């Protein structure tokens, strides 16, 4: 369901033509300052197509990539992309929903190089895999670290190890 306000926006209208069917939902929220926030929910299989189409439309910047863990709900993960166009002074948020057993998505590093570290961070802290990523390693946590700290089932205080048991 794409709301009519969102469909009327130029970037979404042309997107619906170039990558038909890739946008599953579209919403817009207003705030007091009058900066609307547009969110598009994208089919995980088509994320690179959508990203490429948006880049040719002027979204030359990928501000950030992050994820939200909705544990124990399913689909568990949302990968969130914030795009920005300096030229048109517009912002756009893309979201992709992934189940806990299919926490894997195509990397957008081929579209924006800045995705490299952002995706590494999501991989490190959420355990979401990005296929075709040039350098998918942990970035924040040490190399031998077990688990993914920003997952909701990872305790805030970490795992306590008892020396007496071992």
């Amino acid at each position, binding site marked *: 369901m794409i709301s009519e306000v969102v469909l009327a926006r130029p970037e979404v209208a042309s997107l619906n033509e170039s990558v038909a069917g890739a946008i599953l939902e579209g919403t817009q929220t207003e*705030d007091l300052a009058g900066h609307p*926030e547009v969110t598009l929910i994208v089919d995980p299989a088509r994320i690179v197509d959508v990203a490429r189409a948006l880049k040719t439309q002027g979204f030359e910047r990928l501000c950030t990539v992050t994820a*939200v863990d909705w544990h124990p709900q399913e689909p568990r993960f949302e990968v969130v992309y914030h795009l920005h166009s*300096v030229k048109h002074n517009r912002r756009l*948020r893309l979201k992709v929903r992934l189940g806990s057993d299919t926490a894997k998505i195509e990397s957008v590093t081929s579209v924006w190089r800045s995705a490299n*570290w952002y995706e590494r961070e999501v991989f490190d802290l959420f355990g979401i895999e990005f296929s075709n990523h040039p350098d998918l390693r942990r970035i*924040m946590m040490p190399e031998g670290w077990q688990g993914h*700290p920003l997952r909701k089932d990872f305790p805030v205080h970490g795992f306590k190890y008892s020396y007496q048991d071992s």
Partner: protein
Amino acid sequence: MSTIEANSTTRRMTLNMGPQHPSTHGVLRIVLDLDGETIVTARPDIGYLHTGIEKEFEVKHYHQGTPLTDRVDYLSNLNNNLCFALAVEKLLQVEIPARAQWTRVMMCELQRISSHLVWLGTHALDIGAMSMYFYCMREREEVLKIFEMFSGQRMMTSYIRIGGLALDHPRGGLAAIKKFADSFPEKVDQYEELLNSNPIWINRTQGVGYLTLEDMLDMGVTGPMIRAAGQAWDIRKSEPYSSYEKFDFEVPVETASDVWSRYRVRARELRESTKIIQQAVAGMPEGEWKASAPKVVLPDREKMKTQMEALIYHFKIVTEGFTVPPGEAYATVESPRGELGYYIVSDGSAKPWRVHMRTPSFGNLQGLSQMIEGTLIADCIASMGSMDFVLGDVDR
């Protein structure tokens, strides 16, 4: 590269720079592959200062989150306070009174001056102009004294709160700021006098650390770096927040995209920030300094002594926090380093479900490899310093 091909007996050397190297200003480690004095590849290795702030937000009430934001980018904590507050206020739909908005602008610009001064002083120190450091720290001290007057803290101010400010202006606060702002342009003249015709400074900065605008946009570089490459993009102008649209200031732009032009952009920003502060002091509106949202904003101490209702609200906010309607918001401000953004997801409870920080230093640092590969190792320090990253901001 060419020397390797010409002489097969030379070997590349791998050099670990950092994490304790003084000019990385924190704990950044760069693995450099060197061919003689030329950097062949540079791989930044980060995470030494990762403190899990994003995770910690999830177990704290919204008001308890404000002190955490101070500790992300400890050289521009007020911008972090503001950005977090803006994102939560977006979800809450709270109207902020004019006095609070103007004070926020004034404090953020003071913070920009203080942050740029740290940059200018340490960067000059890194590349050999030692006396700059003392001059810059002298003026920064004045700014920190002003922060102490307003908030009781020099660095971790937590002065900008959700719904307004922590406190109203102290007695003599505006006068102190006016005194500082009136004397500051003269100090910038002094800095420029020391640096602009200094042959060592010129030789070490001009033509060093070049990066094209397209690469910067593609790699997530923002802020003064991108303005030094000819892109007049400043969030204070393009998406004005907290009544920045009411202030008259210019966005300094340079085109050379080297260390020198980044210095010029920041030096001119010092003057522009002073202009904004002077306008804020002159036109500071009277009236309320926090929003009339009793469920969100802590009540006045005086009211708590006489009104039962105020006491109850205080107790509720401190013990249970306040709930935020479910939804998501992305707020963004122009921090001294570039685009700072807070993405907050609320599930309707008193604690955020998810807080993500889009920090400028993390984005900027991605451009480092490309900037220094192929250049001399001596220029590495100058290029790196010109990015003005804060490792707390990179690792979070």
